[in-house]
C-alpha cells in the first residue's frame, strides 16, 4: 500500500488534510503549468505559436487539490476497509467463478459468429481479440510460466507474418503448409535470439529482448529487397476453405455448399481459424504445465538457483520456453498476414510487445483464463473509447501502473497447482497466498 504520509490520528483532521492537499496541488501546478497551461502549435509560417489554457490548468490543479483533500481525510478508514474487503471479495469471486467462467467463455467464443453474424464490425473485433489472446497465450509461456521478461515478443509475430507472406507468395503453398513453416521459422528465430541472452538477469534480459524486437523491425523496414521496406508486402494469399476459395465463383465456397455468396463467410472462417489456433495453444500450454518441462518452467520462475542445484539445465529450459512462445507468436503472425492480406513494419512496433505483455501481466501471470479475460477487457475498452484515441493509451499506461501497485499478481492471481495428491484438500484458506 502506498504510504505517502503519516496518517493523522484524529478522525477528521481538516488542517492536516488541507496541508497535504495544498502540497499536492503545488506539485500538480509545477507539473502542469507549462505542459498543460501552455499549448504550442505549428502556426501558418511553420514556427510555433503559443496559446494558453489556464482554465484547464486551474481545473486540473483544483481537481488534484480536492482529490487529495478527500483522500487525506478518509485515508485511514476507506483504505483500511478497502484493503480488507477488496482482495477477499475479488479472490473469493475469482476462485469460485473461475471454472465456470472458463466454460462460459468457451461456449460464448464458439457462438460469436452465430450471435453476431450480421455485424461485421463485431466479428472483426472478435477476431482481433482472439488474435491477441493467442499472442497472450504464447507470451504467457515465456513471461507467465518461465518468468522471463520478454519485451520484444513482437519480433516473433513479425517473423511469422513475413515468413508466411514470403513463402505463400513465392512458393504458392497452401495455408496449411505455410502456417507450420512460419511457426518453425519463428521458433528458430526464438532459439537464435534466445541463445546468447539467456544468461542475463531479469531487467537486462528485458532490455535486450526489447533491442532484438527493434532490430527486427528496423531490418524489416530497411531491407527493401526482401521485405518491401516501409511498403511492406501486399497481396498475401487469402485463406481458402480447404481449397475452396471464398469467392462468388462457381467453384467457390458458397457455391459448393449451396449458399448465397457473402463476404462474411470468409470472416467467419477466419474467426474459427484463429479460435482453433488459440484453443490449440491453450491446450498445449495446459498439457505442458503438467509435464516435467512445464514444471521446470515454473520452478525456474520461482528460483533459478534451486533449479540448477537440482540438476536442471536452466539454459535449455529457458530456450525451450522462448522457442515455444516464439512458435505460437509465429502462428499468430501467419494468421495475421493471411487475414489482412497485407503486412508492413508499422504493425510490429514496441507498443505491440508492451500491449501483449500488459495482457499477460494484468491477466495474472501464468493464468490462461486471466489472459483471455484481460485481452477481451482491454481490447473491448480500447474499441469502446475509440473516439478518445489519444487518451486511450494514456489510460492504458496508467492502468499498468495502478494494477502493479494494487494487484501485482494480476486479475486472476491464484495459481492452480499442476498436480494434486488429493489426500487432504489444499487448506481451503483463501487468505493463504504464496509470499512475494
Amino acid at each position: 500500500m502506498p504510504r505517502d504520509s503519516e496518517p493523522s490520528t484524529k478522525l477528521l483532521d481538516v488542517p492536516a488534510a488541507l496541508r497535504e492537499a495544498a502540497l499536492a496541488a503545488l506539485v500538480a501546478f509545477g507539473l502542469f503549468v507549462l505542459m498543460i497551461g501552455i499549448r504550442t502549435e505549428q502556426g501558418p509560417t511553420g514556427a510555433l505559436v503559443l496559446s494558453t489554457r489556464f482554465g484547464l490548468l486551474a481545473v486540473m490543479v483544483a481537481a488534484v487539490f480536492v482529490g487529495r483533500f478527500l483522500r487525506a481525510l478518509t485515508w485511514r478508514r476507506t483504505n483500511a476497509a478497502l484493503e480488507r474487503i477488496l482482495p477477499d471479495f475479488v479472490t473469493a469471486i475469482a476462485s469460485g467463478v473461475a471454472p465456470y467462467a472458463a466454460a462460459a467463455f468457451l461456449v460464448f467464443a464458439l457462438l460469436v459468429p452465430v450471435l453476431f453474424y450480421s455485424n461485421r464490425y463485431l466479428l472483426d473485433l472478435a477476431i482481433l481479440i482472439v488474435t491477441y489472446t493467442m499472442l497472450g497465450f504464447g507470451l504467457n509461456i515465456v513471461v507467465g510460466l518461465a518468468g522471463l521478461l520478454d519485451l520484444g515478443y513482437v519480433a516473433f509475430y513479425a517473423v511469422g507474418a513475413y515468413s508466411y507472406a514470403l513463402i505463400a507468395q513465392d512458393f504458392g503453398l497452401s495455408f496449411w503448409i505455410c502456417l507450420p513453416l512460419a511457426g518453425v521459422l519463428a521458433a528458430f528465430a526464438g532459439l537464435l535470439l534466445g541463445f546468447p541472452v539467456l544468461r542475463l538477469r531479469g531487467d537486462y534480459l528485458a532490455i535486450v529482448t526489447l533491442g532484438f524486437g527493434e532490430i527486427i523491425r528496423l531490418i524489416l523496414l530497411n531491407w527493401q529487397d526482401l521485405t518491401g521496406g516501409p511498403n511492406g508486402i501486399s497481396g498475401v494469399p487469402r485463406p481458402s476453405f480447404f481449397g475452396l476459395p471464398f469467392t462468388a465463383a462457381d467453384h467457390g465456397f458458397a457455391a459448393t455448399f449451396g449458399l448465397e455468396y457473402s463476404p462474411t463467410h470468409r470472416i467467419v472462417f477466419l474467426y474459427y481459424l484463429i479460435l482453433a489456433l488459440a484453443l490449440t495453444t491453450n491446450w498445449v500450454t495446459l498439457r505442458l504445465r503438467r509435464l516435467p518441462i512445464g514444471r521446470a518452467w515454473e520452478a525456474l520462475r520461482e528460483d533459478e538457483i534451486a533449479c540448477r542445484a537440482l540438476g536442471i539445465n536452466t539454459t535449455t529450459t529457458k530456450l525451450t520456453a522462448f522457442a515455444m512462445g516464439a512458435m505460437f507468436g509465429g502462428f499468430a503472425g501467419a494468421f495475421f498476414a493471411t487475414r489482412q492480406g497485407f503486412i508492413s513494419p508499422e504493425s510490429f512496433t514496441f507498443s505491440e510487445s508492451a500491449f501483449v505483455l500488459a495482457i499477460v501481466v494484468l491477466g495474472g501471470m501464468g493464468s490462461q483464463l486471466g489472459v483471455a479475460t484481460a485481452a477481451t477487457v482491454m481490447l473491448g475498452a480500447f474499441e469502446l473509447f475509440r473516439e478518445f484515441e489519444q487518451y486511450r493509451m494514456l489510460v492504458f499506461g496508467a492502468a499498468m501502473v495502478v494494477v502493479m501497485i494494487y494487484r501485482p499478481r494480476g486479475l486472476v492471481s491464484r495459481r492452480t497447482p499442476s498436480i494434486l495428491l488429493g489426500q487432504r484438500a489444499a487448506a481451503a484458506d483463501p487468505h493463504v497466498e504464496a509470499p512475494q
Partner: protein
Amino acid sequence: MNKPVILNVEHVTMRFGGLVAVSDLSFLARQGEITALIGPNGAGKTTMFNCITGFYKPTVGRLKLRHPDGARYLLERMPEFRIARQARVARTFQNVRLFAGMTLLENLLVAQHNTLMLASGFTLLGLFGSPHYARAEAGGIGKARYWLDRIGLAERADDVAGALPYGAQRRLEIARAMCIDPVLLCLDEPAAGLNNRESAALNELLLAIRHEHGTSILLIEHDMGVVMEISDHIIVLDYGLKIADGTPVEVRNDQKVIAAYLGVADDEVGQAGAEVGL
C-alpha cells in the same frame, strides 16, 4: 579400517579479487559418513560448499568425487547442474530456497525432472499421453510420497510450500535434495532456527538417510549439539584456513578450535597466536 573416500578436496583456494575466502584447503570425506564443516562466521564454509556444488569455480585446486561404483568426477570443472545430475551431489541452502509458489508435491517432482523428462520423451511422448510416461510419473509421485512421509508432511502435500512453517521448509528442502538420489548430500546449516525438538528430529532424519540410503553427508553447521551428535568426522575452518581435522572428540578438545570460537583475552593474544601458529 577406513571407508573409501568419496570426496577429495585438494588444495582448494578461492579468491574474490583481493579477498581470499578459502586458502589452500584440503580434506577428505568418506563414503557413508557424516562429515561436518564448522567454524566461525565468514570462515569460508559456504564458499567451500559453493565450490563443491559448482556455483563457484575455485581459483586453485581440485575437487575429486568418487562414486561407490567407481565413477570419478572432477567437480571443479563441472557446471552446477551437471554436478547435481551426473555426479549426483545434492545440496540445500543457507536461506532455504524452495519453489515457494508451488506445492510440496510439485517441489519434489521438479527434483525428479531429468528422469521424468527422459520418460516423457523430452515432452513429445508425454504430450500425447504415452503410458510409459504415465508410469514414470506415478513412480515419481511414489518417491515424492515416500519422502513426504519420512519428513512427516504427507498430509500437506498439496499445500503451497511457502505456507509451511520454517522448520518444515527446511525438512522439505532436504527431502527435495534426496529426490535426486544423491551419493553426496551437502547441507548448509540445516539446523539453523530449529528448536531442540526439531533438531533432534533432524538428527534422526540425517542418521536414517545415511543408514538406509548409504548417502554420504557433508554438513555445515553451527549447532554443536547436532554436529557432535551425528558427525563421524569434523573439519574446522577459520579465516579460510583449516585449523583442525578429526573425530568429534579430537576436535572438541583442540586448543586452536577453542581459541577460534571463544576468542582469547587481550593479554593472551600473543601467546595464543604463537600456539595457533600465526
